């Protein structure tokens, strides 16, 4: 008996008991739907992150250091960063920055979100920021009480000043008043793990002067477009080891970050896969249950078919194809559902929607495998039936 004929029979028989079919596929649909949905969303997010990342340029290294140091000879000082750039033609710019822990206020009011940075002139170019109004901090602004505000902070302040320029407005940080000299355009840079739209940028030297415990622990470095990242990372490490006996530097290249992102994504996918698998097992048990009922109900049919010449394997195949069809019906609905969910999530997050072909293939593959696996036992039961007992049953 051909698979095509079996398949037609299966559709026929599933259609005959629509309600039961529908109930049986709910589990599979939810299982496949969640797997597809989550894998698709994961892929959309990954792509989005990658896009932002590429927009940020692939010629930046991120340096970070975790230990605090009391003595100047082990600290990274501003002059060291300047000397570092001079020491190596492959290093184009270095932008050290400090995150300070003070609460800024404006006209006596706290900001809902604000992070206080100490930076240098190169911060704007290395992080691809753009000035919206006024100017950025320059190397001549050492020890000054000037501030440049991120887009979100600027919006907040504009509501207060009602039409007036932000330039010249004063922010209170700790006991000091800072004068706003510029604001930034909206930024999508997420490389610092802090939203720069809510940043208040002041000169690095000013922050260190106000709080002696602060030191440079983070830096973004721009290198030449043809530079071999691993080589230059090694050179920077050696530089600080020789000059400052610093051993705890971590320098990451874009390749490292991509790897890290992929690894996180993998974990995410694995977790979602596990959740999906559990619902698939539940769904599979549902399919098995329905198939067992179907075999019991159709004993007479099995007996008649056997009398008319069906071999055991014909009967087995018939029920196996039926359970696989059943499961795949659930899978198809699940795929549609999952893709729809991913679409709405992408729409909501204003991300570019992509259909993951892998996810769809996975959906088809897994749902048919579930159908075959959980249909195997009922199909074997059907094939094992004694023709006479099957004929006599009602």
């Amino acid at each position: 008996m051909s698979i095509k004929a079996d398949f037609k029979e299966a559709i026929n028989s599933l259609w005959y008991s629509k309600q039961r079919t529908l109930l049986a596929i709910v589990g599979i649909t939810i299982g496949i739907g969640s797997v597809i949905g989550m894998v698709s969303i994961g892929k959309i997010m990954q792509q989005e992150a990658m896009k932002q990342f590429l927009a940020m340029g692939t010629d930046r290294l991120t340096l970070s250091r975790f230990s605090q140091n009391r003595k100047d000879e082990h600290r990274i000082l501003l002059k060291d960063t300047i000397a570092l750039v001079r020491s190596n033609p492959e290093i184009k710019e270095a932008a050290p920055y400090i995150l300070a822990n003070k609460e800024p206020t404006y006209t006596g009011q706290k900001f809902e979100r604000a992070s206080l940075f100490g930076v240098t002139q190169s911060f704007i170019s290395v992080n691809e920021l753009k000035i919206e109004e006024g100017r950025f901090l320059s190397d001549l602004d050492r020890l000054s009480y000037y501030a440049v505000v991120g887009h979100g902070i600027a919006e907040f302040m504009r509501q207060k000043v009602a039409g007036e320029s932000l330039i010249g407005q004063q922010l209170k940080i700790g006991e000091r008043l800072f004068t706003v000299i510029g604001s930034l355009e909206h930024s999508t840079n997420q490389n610092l793990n802090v939203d720069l739209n809510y940043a208040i940028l002041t000169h690095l030297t000013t922050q260190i002067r106000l709080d002696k415990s602060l030191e440079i622990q983070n830096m973004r470095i721009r290198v030449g477009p043809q530079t071999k990242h691993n080589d230059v990372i090694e050179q920077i490490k050696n530089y600080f080891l020789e000059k400052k006996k610093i051993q705890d530097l971590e320098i990451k290249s874009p390749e490292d970050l991509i790897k890290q992102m992929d690894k996180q994504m993998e974990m995410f996918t694995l977790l979602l896969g596990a959740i999906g698998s559990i619902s698939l097992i539940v769904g599979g048990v549902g399919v098995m249950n329905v198939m067992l009922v179907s075999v019991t109900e159709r004993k007479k049919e099995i007996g008649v078919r056997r009398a008319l010449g069906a071999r055991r394997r014909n009967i087995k195949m018939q029920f196996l194809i039926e359970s696989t069809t059943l499961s795949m019906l659930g899978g198809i609905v699940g795929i549609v559902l999952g893709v729809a969910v991913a679409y709405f999530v992408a729409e909501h997050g204003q991300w570019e929607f992509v259909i993951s072909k892998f996810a769809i293939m996975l959906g088809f593959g897994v749902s048919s495998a579930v159908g075959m696996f959980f249909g195997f036992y009922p199909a074997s039961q059907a094939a094992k039936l004694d023709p006479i007992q099957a004929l006599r049953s009602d």
Partner: protein
Amino acid sequence: MLVLNNIRKNYPLGSVEVEVLKGVNLKVDTGELLSIMGQSGCGKSTLMNIMGLLDKPTSGFFSINDQEITYKDDDHLSGLRNNHIGFVFQQYFLLSKLTALENVGVPLVYRGESSGNIKKRSMEFLEKVGMAERADHKPNQLSGGQQQRVAIARALVGEPALILADEPTGALDTRVGEEIMELFKKVNKEEGITIIIITHDPGIAEQCSRYVNMKDGKILES
């Protein structure tokens, strides 16, 4: 074409064995229209199941066309049923989800024939039993007599050497039962197919070219 020699069949019933067939001897020639008659419980259905290769005897010799049946290979038995035996049941046993035409074609499906060929052959045999205009009806849209006609077409479609009919008129009224008997007689005469009808009705038995009586698990010599 059929030879049964000292066929015995025991069924376990709880802890005891019940002897249903106690040594059946029977020879059936090609082209015969034979009736096996007996009261219910005499073992005639068990005998039919054995002759139809649905059941295996506890002991005894059974051959079809000089080939001894060995019961070792289930697939082989299925193949023999499919190619050489047509069944007609008292309760028709048509598959409820299939149309009359599709029901007739089932034995050919298991022969692996092409769907076009199956359709053509099935229609041919529906015509032969006078059911062509009901080809697209489902069994529940047909009367008992009509269903039995479709069942006979299904038994004939594979051009078997032997048709086994178990109380084929048992669920039908007398007039329709007679029509079915006429159909069997016609098929036997025109196609030369050997037909064995199991019945408890002497009226049916008398219409056959030969009949044997069965009592208490044995065939009485007639």
